């Protein structure tokens, strides 16, 4: 299973390295979202700094949808998805591989957006480890659920509109938890507030990673 994970993740990341879709389209979209949020919330710096955690995670969530769409689209061309099924790859490995590739892209995105939030909204980070932990755990959760829902909607013609509708409500706990942890990690928060939410994220990640490993095979067969 791990060998297949590395194989698939490597393939997806190599494709990304060649096509640079995440770097040239998804990340800039995230930055554009941050700018638009600023227009929406007005020029008051204190208000924006207070809203920074939520806006960061909102932007990450929307970009995650795009990253998942891209990951699914890669397999839709030339019947590649059938090819993966025929190859006898371990479905769990396939799931983890695709989720890892999405996670890697999201981490890069979060670094860029994090810098953007600090610069554009004047947010100030007091407890960096909380911020980093929330990003890592949140990314895992988004990647896991995204890969699952991507597979569920893979064969559908209306995937582009259906996937966000299905994925975003499920990802709501990540948004809630991420925002709260960031608030704890910024001016005025304490570690205690944050750790409870971190535990929630751990549970969320564990549940969806375990589910994915188990059901990805049957989902593939029904696509």
């Amino acid at each position, binding site marked *: 299973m791990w060998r*297949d994970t590395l*194989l*698939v993740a490597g393939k997806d990341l190599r*494709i990304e390295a060649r096509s640079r879709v995440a770097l040239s389209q998804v990340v800039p979209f995230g930055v554009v979202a941050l700018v638009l949020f600023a227009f929406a919330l007005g020029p008051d710096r204190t208000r924006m700094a207070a809203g920074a955690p939520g806006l960061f995670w909102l932007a990450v969530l929307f970009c995650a949808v795009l990253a998942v769409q891209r990951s699914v689209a890669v397999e839709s061309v*030339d*019947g590649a998805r059938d090819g993966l*099924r*025929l*190859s*006898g790859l371990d479905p769990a490995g396939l799931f983890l591989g695709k989720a890892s590739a999405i996670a890697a892209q999201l981490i890069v995105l979060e670094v860029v957006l994090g810098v953007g939030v600090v610069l554009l909204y004047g947010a100030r980070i007091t407890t960096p480890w909380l911020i980093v932990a929330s990003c890592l755990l949140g990314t895992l959760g988004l990647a896991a659920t995204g890969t699952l829902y991507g597979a569920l909607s893979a064969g559908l013609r209306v995937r582009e509109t259906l996937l966000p509708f299905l994925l975003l409500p499920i990802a709501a706990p990540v948004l809630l938890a991420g925002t709260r942890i960031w608030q704890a990690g910024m001016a005025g928060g304490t570690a205690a507030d944050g750790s409870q939410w971190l535990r929630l994220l751990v549970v969320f990640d564990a549940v969806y990673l375990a589910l994915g490993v188990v059901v990805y095979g049957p989902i593939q067969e029904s696509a």
Partner: protein
Amino acid sequence: MAPPDPSPPAVFLRHAVALSGRFPLLTGVDLTVARGETVLIEGPNGAGKTSLLRVCAGLVPLSSGRVAVFGLDPVRQSNGVRRRIGLLSHASHLYDDLSVRENIRFAVRAAGGEVARIEDACARLGLTGRLAKTTAAKLSAGQRRRVALAVLVARWPELWLLDEPHAGLDASARSVLNSLVADAAASGASVVIASHEPEFVGSLATRAVTVTGGRVTAERRIAAAPAEPRDQPPAALVARADGVPGGRVAHVA
């Protein structure tokens, strides 16, 4: 009479009915392909030839009837069977952003094949030099077909399912393909070729099955005729294909 074969046949279908939504793809297929046999599936467009191959590969589940590949259900027991099957379909399963070499490497490694055989496979199909480094997006349809074939050659599975393999290939590629099929049959692999242009298949197959309306409607034996001048296989192969009555090769490599 040949002695009874103790191991299960390569492909076994009984009353196979397959659906896609409400549309019936197969309406009751009965077919048995013995190990080492080469069978031609012929029929008009839309007859169900592609669906038949996909059922054998385990991509399409049956809604009634039985299917067994090497004795196992290709959908429910896919673990034991997928890596022993190779399907060459209309789509080539290539990733547009990767090069030919990378695509083949990924496909072979994903299927558990040996990486060492990739070089030979590429050489045999003329995918060397600059072509090997070309991104898949820039390939022509015939070249994509050759890449998919190279994957098959590198994997050398026990059951070859070829869906209209000659379509889109030029004459030299077609003769390479025919020699490959002959080699596969000689090595004991079972081959099923679906084609609505059986003149290209020539004497590769020993049996031809006609599929129309989603089921088998006719069957005939093909005598091992001497090679047609148009599709002259390389001389080295003539000795193997000739002189074997009924064309059935019993030994397993």
